[in-house]
Structures are given as structure tokens and as C-alpha cells.
């Protein structure tokens, strides 16, 4: 069972075969679930912590500060300390809250994020779900999260929470359209909804470059709409702390709050990962058509590194938005979507179809 850092297909295949041969089919499936689930849980928890740390450092850099520096070397253990603190905090519930929905809401939010992460291809062979409606599945499950946010706002029995939840509902439902349409543009170009096909199609050049203008437009729209979907600044109306204290999670404390917090960062990762996969080639190294030597040099860098480089690039851009722009108002946010992004998207998709039909692409 050789470990190949460039292709995980053999590794994952060997584990699968080993399990099937060693156990009964039922046990094998169960064990596989447990292994995959644990791996994702670990990844999400650790990556979430890393993202929180990254955000605090990026934010500090924008604000001429150092950020966390005290706990661990350069504050590396700060987020872990924060996480332990959150675990130990008392869970406080408003007396008149709807107990069942109040407790259910954080789980819906985080489950939606977990479901979405399953289709992200990290590297060749490192993807747990790869079916022909991958992108469709992703957009569907990621919109389940808004139910959790609405429930959280409603069940908290707090007016600020309710306003935040309603804002969030209106915003996510609207921007869902733009996210889907910009992805649809790329589906038209790629000719497939399957992630592995999409990544494979970018072997000779990323879709952002090969699809020229419509791709670029779709990428920009996707970044804007994706930022809005994750409720991040400048679209962080749902938790606008200068207006609504903390929006829909005002009444949550301890680990339940941590769930919302973590879900926000997983969503950030998912949006960035999808942007990286669909527009920037996912784990595919940077290739230019004819430059053989260059292409070989790029192949030396492992796919996993490529993937995370791109993801962090997109995450950095989204953080850049947040720490630079003021927040939009609720009516402006809807105006932006319905009056600008949506028509642009519709025209863009037609343009893309035209380009694909006339084969006017690289």
C-alpha cells in the first residue's frame, strides 16, 4: 500500500478493498462511513480553527495590528484555547424560547455545511462523493442552512434575532439564484456537473482563462454572491453587530454558538473550494497549452497543495472584502441581486452558450 502524494486513488482504493475483504459487507460499509465521517469531522474542526486564526491574522494585517500573539508561537494556539473556552461555557437559553427548535437550529446549519463538503474534490482520489450531479447537489444542500438560521432567529424569541434571521433568509434565498446561475454558466462550458469531469476538463487551462469573458463575469458574480451566501461582510446583515448586536445567534452561547461560528467558516471554505474547483482548476496544476517544461515544473507541486493554495487565495479575497467595505443596507443588498447580478447572469449564460456553440474558446 504505497503512499503517493500525487494521487490518492490507490490509497483510498486499497483501504476500501481491505475493508471489503476483511469484514462482512455490512461491517465494511459501516466502518467506511465511520472512517470517512471521522476524517471529515477532524478536517472541519481543524480547518475551522485554522480559518479563524487566519481571519484574525489577516484582519490584523489590514488593521495595522499583530493579532493574537500570546498563546503559543505567534498566537497559533489562540483559537484552540478559544475553542476549549467555548466548550466549557454554560449553555444559556432564553426562558420563552421554543426549546426544540432552539436546540435543533445549530445542528441544521452545521449539517448543511457537512453535506456540502462531501463533494469537494481535494486531490485525485480524495473525494467521498463523486456523482454526475455534483454541483447540483452542492447548491441544493448548501441552501438547507438557511432553514437553521431562520429557526434560530424565530425560536430565540428575541426581536434582534428575528430581524437578523429574516434579513438572512431574504439575502440567502436571493443570492442562491446568482450562485446557481453563475455555476450554471460554467456547467454549460464544462458540459458536466460532475466535479471530477470539471477538474479533468481544466487540464490544459483553467476555465477562468479558457472561457474568457463569460467565465470572468461568472467568477466575479460567484465571488460576490458566495460572500453574500456565507453572510460575510460586506453582506453580514444577518449579524450586523452595530445594528442587531449579533443577529440570529444573539441568544446562543457555548458550543451552540460555536456551531454557528464553525458553520460560517466551513461555508467560507466551501464557497472558496467551489470557486477554486470550478474556475481555477481545483487540484489541477497551472498548465499552459504548449509550454511543456513549465507544465512539468508545475506538476511537481502536489495536487493537494495546489488545491489549498487556490482555496486560500479565494478565502483571502473574501476576507479582504470583509475588512475593507462598509456593510450594505438590506434594501440595497436585494437591489444589487435582483436588479444587477441576476440580469448580468442571465445575459452571461446566453453569451456562454453562444461561445460554446461557436467554439469561440481556447
Amino acid at each position, binding site marked *: 500500500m504505497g503512499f503517493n502524494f500525487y494521487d490518492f486513488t490507490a490509497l483510498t482504493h486499497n483501504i476500501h478493498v481491505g475493508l471489503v475483504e476483511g469484514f462482512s459487507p455490512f461491517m465494511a460499509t459501516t466502518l467506511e462511513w465511520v472512517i470517512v465521517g471521522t476524517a471529515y469531522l477532524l478536517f472541519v474542526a481543524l480547518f475551522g480553527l485554522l480559518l479563524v486564526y487566519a481571519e484574525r491574522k489577516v484582519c490584523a494585517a489590514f488593521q495595522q495590528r499583530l493579532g493574537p500573539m500570546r498563546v503559543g508561537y505567534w498566537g497559533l494556539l489562540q483559537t484552540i484555547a478559544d475553542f476549549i473556552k467555548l466548550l466549557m461555557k454554560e449553555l444559556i437559553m432564553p426562558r420563552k424560547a421554543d426549546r426544540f427548535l432552539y436546540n435543533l437550529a445549530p445542528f441544521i446549519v452545521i449539517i448543511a455545511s457537512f453535506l456540502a463538503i462531501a463533494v469537494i474534490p481535494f486531490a485525485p482520489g480524495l473525494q467521498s462523493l463523486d456523482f454526475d450531479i455534483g454541483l447540483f447537489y452542492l447548491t441544493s444542500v448548501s441552501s438547507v442552512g438557511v432553514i437553521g438560521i431562520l429557526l434560530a432567529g424565530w425560536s430565540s424569541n428575541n426581536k434582534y434575532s428575528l430581524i437578523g434571521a429574516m434579513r438572512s433568509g431574504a439575502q440567502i434565498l436571493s443570492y442562491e439564484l446568482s450562485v446557481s446561475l453563475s455555476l450554471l454558466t460554467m456547467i454549460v462550458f464544462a458540459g458536466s456537473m460532475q466535479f471530477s469531469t470539471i477538474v479533468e476538463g481544466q487540464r490544459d487551462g483553467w476555465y477562468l482563462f479558457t472561457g474568457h469573458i463569460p467565465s470572468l463575469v461568472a467568477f466575479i458574480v460567484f465571488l460576490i454572491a458566495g460572500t453574500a451566501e456565507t453572510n460575510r461582510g460586506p453582506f453580514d446583515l444577518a449579524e450586523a453587530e452595530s*445594528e442587531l448586536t449579533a443577529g440570529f445567534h444573539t441568544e446562543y452561547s457555548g458550543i451552540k454558538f460555536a456551531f454557528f461560528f464553525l458553520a460560517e467558516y466551513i461555508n467560507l471554505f466551501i464557497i472558496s473550494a467551489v470557486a477554486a474547483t470550478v474556475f481555477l482548476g481545483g487540484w489541477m496544476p497551472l498548465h499552459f497549452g504548449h509550454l511543456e517544461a513549465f507544465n512539468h515544473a508545475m506538476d511537481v507541486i502536489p495536487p493537494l497543495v495546489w488545491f489549498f493554495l487556490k482555496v486560500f487565495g479565494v478565502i483571502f479575497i473574501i476576507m479582504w472584502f470583509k475588512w475593507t467595505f462598509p456593510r450594505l*443596507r438590506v434594501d440595497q443588498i436585494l437591489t444589487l441581486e435582483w436588479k444587477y447580478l441576476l440580469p448580468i447572469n442571465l445575459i452571461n449564460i446566453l453569451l456562454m452558450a453562444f461561445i460554446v456553440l461557436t467554439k469561440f474558446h481556447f
Partner: protein
Amino acid sequence: MSEIKEIMFNSDRLATDEYLVNMGPQHPSTHGVLRMLVKLEGEKVLNIQPHIGYIHSGIEKMCEAISYPQIIHLTDRMDYLSAHMNNEAVALCVENALQVEVPERVKYIRTIMDELARLASHQLWWCVMGMDLGALTTFFYGLRDREMILDIFEETCGARLTVNYNLPGGVMFDIHPNFQKRVKDFITYFRKKLPEYDQLLTGNVIFRERTEGIGHLSLADAIAYGVTGPSGRASGFSNDLRKHQPYSAYPLVKFNEILDHRCDTLARYEVRMKEMHESLSIIEQLIDNIPEGDYAVKMKSVIKLPEGEFYQRVETARGEFGVYIVSDGKKNPYRVKFRSPGFSNLFALNNMAKGHKIADLVAIMSTLDLVIPDIDR
């Protein structure tokens, strides 16, 4: 609660779609302990009733029991961002009552310190304005520059915020030997940094969308509510006391009173931004010409004001600050009343924010530049 509704909203009951929200006393954007009872319909603000008194400190009453120099120390606890101007108002009032002429040097020092305090206050306002609109980075840019002013204060007065620098008859100490150099350094530095403020916030599309045409306060309303300071001047209300009733060294300097007739949040924002440039130019005109001489005149150890009523007003960073002293000839006043700009400005809020969204309410409140202890005194 139902009683409050009846009294505060003059309407018999809330309509089905309306609800009440308490903004404050613990709320991130009220900048202190202001409580507002806001009637909302969805996101739309229908009515705002400010409730004050959460940090009422009884300063006016306390003044009746203490001597005049001691009153000065209380005034910088009110509008702590305009501490120096508040101090100066009391000092000027006492000096005028006793007909004491202060040395030229004192006038220059006071004016420079006034303008430095105004700059520091406007910088903090800018930080907070950005933060209220969701641009958190502005906070650190503004505070970075404000720190330099506070360092200058610290060097000369020993305090950074509540400076207590004025005395009846002069200032407490002479300026520090480094003072002129540091102030000049600061002016050169801040001239370069001000365009950065504009790049970060003023020119931003989202910022302009959020502020243009929001929170209209007409000239008539501004005068009726007594909205003074930059907030009033943004409605075209010419009320700069530094021009209209010059005190200290203000008659000697050339500067423009910034007026704007657009009456909206953006106008109030831009008036303050331009005032920072004016303040820099005022300091620049004075800093090299501080005359030699005493930094205070010798006053009697127990100051007694003649019987009568005395009023002095100054222009603080927030507007017109007035001190009204009624004296019965003793060493402590019979009654002291402060006219604070924040109080009048706050109550124009309902007029400005009605019909806008919650987010606009926060932005409008931010351009009024409220300091709550200034209101609850």
C-alpha cells in the same frame, strides 16, 4: 410596558405589523448607555423615543458645593472628547466675571489645545462612524493617528483624555519644550494621512450609497431643535462660535466655517472631514507664533464671583457648549447650568431617522456624534 407605549407613542396601540425594540442601554452602536425605544415596522423605523438618565452623574448639582477651579475638573467628565473646550468654557466664564485679562500666551495655548482636542474628537468620530457602518478597519486607522495627539496632551498636561489643563486665569503648566516640534510633526504627518481616510471610506461606493440622502435635517428643523456644531452646519445653519463670538486666539486666525446645504448624513460626514483640515490650518497659523510670557495670571487663592449671572459659550467638537453660572457672591456658585450640544442634537434624531431603515438609524446616530455623559450630566 403598556403604559410606556401609551405615553411615549401618543398612539392608542401598535398596529399588527408594528413592534417595539429597545435599542440600548446595552447596544453596540449607542456608544454608551443611551436607550432608545424604537417603533418598527419590519425594518422601517416609525418612531424613536430616546431615554436618557442611565449615567446621570449629577454634575450640575455637585457644582453648587465646590469652588470654581474645582468645577473645571468636573466639566471634562461630561464630554470627555471635548474635555479641553469644556474646561475652557468655565475658565472663560470665571475670567469674564472677574474681568481678568489673560496673557496672550494663554490664548494661543488654549486655542491650539482646543483644535488638537477637536481633531482627536473628530478622529474618534470617524473611527466609530466607519465601525457603525460595518467597516471595522477604520477604527484602527483613526486611533493610530489619535494616539499622537493624546501623546502630545500627555506630555504637556500629564493626562491623555480628561486633561484638566485650564485654570481660571490661565493654564495649569507651561507647554512642554517639545510641544511645538511635536505638534508640527503631527501636522505634517496627519496631512499625509487624511487622504488615506478618504480612500478608505469617503470614496467607497457602499459608503456613499449608505449616506447620500439619508437622515435629512432641514435648516428650519436644525434651528428649531438647536442642532449645533458640525451637525447643524451640515444643514446650512451657520453657528460656529469661533466665527460668530470669537474667544481666545480665534479672532487672530483665518479659517473657514464649513457649511453644507445638503442636510444629509454624507453632508454631516464631510463637514467634519473638512473641519479637520481647518483645524490643522488653525494650529499651523498659531504654533510658530506663541508669544513669550506667563502661562497664567495670579488669581486669588479663593475665587469669589460677584453677585449676578454669567454665561459663556464655546464651540466644542460637537457644537455649542454653554456655561451658565448664577453667583451669590460666595466661593461656590448658587447654581450652574450647562448647555451641552449632545442633548439638543440627540432629540433631532427622531425627525431625521423616521421612515428610514434600522441600519440608517445607526448611521444617522453616528453622524450626530453623541457622547452620552454630555447628555446625562
